[in-house]
């Protein structure tokens, strides 16, 4: 992480930290606990003023805070519903620094894969056609509901998953699904010590500026790929580049900072730290990289080899579909 020693914009006294989840699994909230005993050090210098996953705060509590009351707000999860958008706008107003925390807030994450389906297809699968369902009345969620006590307004699903940055200005981004504990602690230390990079919505912290391949210890033998394999089909040879062995490893197109944890554990990089390059489109970077390593001299043979990749779109954009050039299916 590069710093220019910029002080974070904060009020005197203890640092006020908030954390919120939108369209996410909760793993990001847990990743904050991954800093371990450092949490006690954090509590000494910081007060938690909002954290629905871990402590009992109501939305009303936040709405009653004066504007700019929260010094640093870690926002995880993408924007899937009107409730997520309302909270994103509210927390932007109440926070001096808003951080897109984790792959979902930054790039849409796994939930953004639903952008490859239309809302109708999603509703059909979730409420009607799934074989384990029993929904004879064909009930679907509604945004309005009349109760004996009055009309209820409920959050509605948006046509596609958006990033936090599509809705409000974001000061920093921390990539990862979830961000690695050691990196999170480094960022929090920098915040407390007042050594953050200049405020800019495109700045990513808690990661390096290289690709996962740069951190990966596996050996490259400069061989070309003759056939693709899925992880369950073969046991990878240890210490040899997984991509060269034919496993679709996204290390080449993924930003480093995680310490190449997955390739070190004989598992392909899944790409959770987002795009490594200047373009935010991680999938095309991988498409491009694959073109250079496929062993084929005729067009038919090339097509045969790439046809072995099951679901290329879902694989290459696993965590970053909302940040891709096209963003969603038509």
């Amino acid at each position, binding site marked *: 992480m590069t710093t220019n020693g910029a002080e974070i914009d904060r009020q005197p006294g203890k640092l006020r930290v908030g954390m919120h989840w939108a369209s996410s699994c909760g793993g990001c909230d847990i990743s904050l606990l991954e800093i371990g005993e450092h949490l006690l050090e954090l509590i000494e210098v910081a007060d938690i003023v909002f954290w629905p996953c871990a402590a009992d705060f109501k939305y009303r509590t936040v709405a009653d805070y004066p504007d700019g009351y929260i010094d640093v707000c870690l926002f995880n999860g993408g924007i899937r519903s009107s409730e997520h958008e309302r909270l994103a706008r509210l927390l932007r107003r109440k926070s001096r620094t808003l951080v897109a925390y984790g792959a979902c807030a930054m790039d849409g994450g796994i939930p953004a894969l639903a952008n*490859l389906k239309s809302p109708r297809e999603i509703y059909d699968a979730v409420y009607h056609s799934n074989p384990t369902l029993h929904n004879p009345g064909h009930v679907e969620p509604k945004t*309005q509901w009349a109760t004996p006590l009055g009309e209820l307004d409920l959050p509605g699903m948006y046509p596609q998953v958006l990033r936090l940055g599509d809705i409000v200005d974001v000061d920093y981004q921390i990539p990862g699904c979830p961000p690695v504990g050691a990196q999170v602690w480094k960022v929090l230390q920098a915040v407390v010590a007042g050594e953050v990079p200049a405020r800019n919505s495109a700045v990513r912290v808690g990661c390096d500026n290289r690709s996962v391949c740069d951190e990966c210890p596996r050996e490259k033998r400069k061989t070309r790929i003759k056939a693709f394999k899925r992880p369950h089909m073969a046991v990878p040879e240890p210490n040899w580049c997984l991509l060269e062995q034919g496993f679709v490893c996204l290390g080449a197109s993924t930003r480093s900072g995680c310490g190449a944890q997955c390739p070190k554990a004989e598992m392909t990089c899944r790409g959770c730290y987002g795009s490594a390059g200047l373009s935010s489109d991680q999938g095309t970077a991988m498409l*491009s990289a694959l073109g250079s390593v496929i062993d*084929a001299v005729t067009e038919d043979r090339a097509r045969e*080899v790439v*046809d072995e990749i099951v679901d290329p779109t879902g694989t290459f954009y696993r965590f970053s579909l909302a940040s891709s050039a096209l963003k969603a299916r038509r």
Partner: protein
Amino acid sequence: MSQGESVQPPAETGTSQAWEPRIIAFLCYWCSYTGADNAGTARLKYPANVDIIRVMCSGRIDPDLIMTAFARGADGVMVCGCHIGDCHYIAGNHKTMARMPLVSRVLQDFGIEPERFVHEWVSAAEGDKFAKLVRQVTEQVCQVGPLDWPRRMYERGVGHGQDLQPWGDRA
């Protein structure tokens, strides 16, 4: 688009005048661009819907350029390079050959019809083939109609989010 940048609603296409498809053609300098030139000097007629972008080699056409062309409003994209074996840089078009089938598969997952993306080899002597290809691509893009990607994404809230009508809530 960088995050947080405010987005203006894109201009409506195809309302004020008859819609004409906009096709971006990436041509390699050594063969296909010269081939297009050949079509010009031979005075072959082809539709003016194609915007040619000259690149040094078809192997340097990053799939990102193709996606970005569609995302910024192109209705069709053509990628042309030297025939296999003719590459000025020996194996640049081998990389194109391996990338393009994957690109068209990914484009179809995004709902972009195969008619909109064409990959073909055109040599410096094939002005006739180039003119014919442009005619054919323009015709098939006309048949599938406007793509209008920027407006589509704007309507779904990319870059602003507000005033979105939640989906669902129907009888």
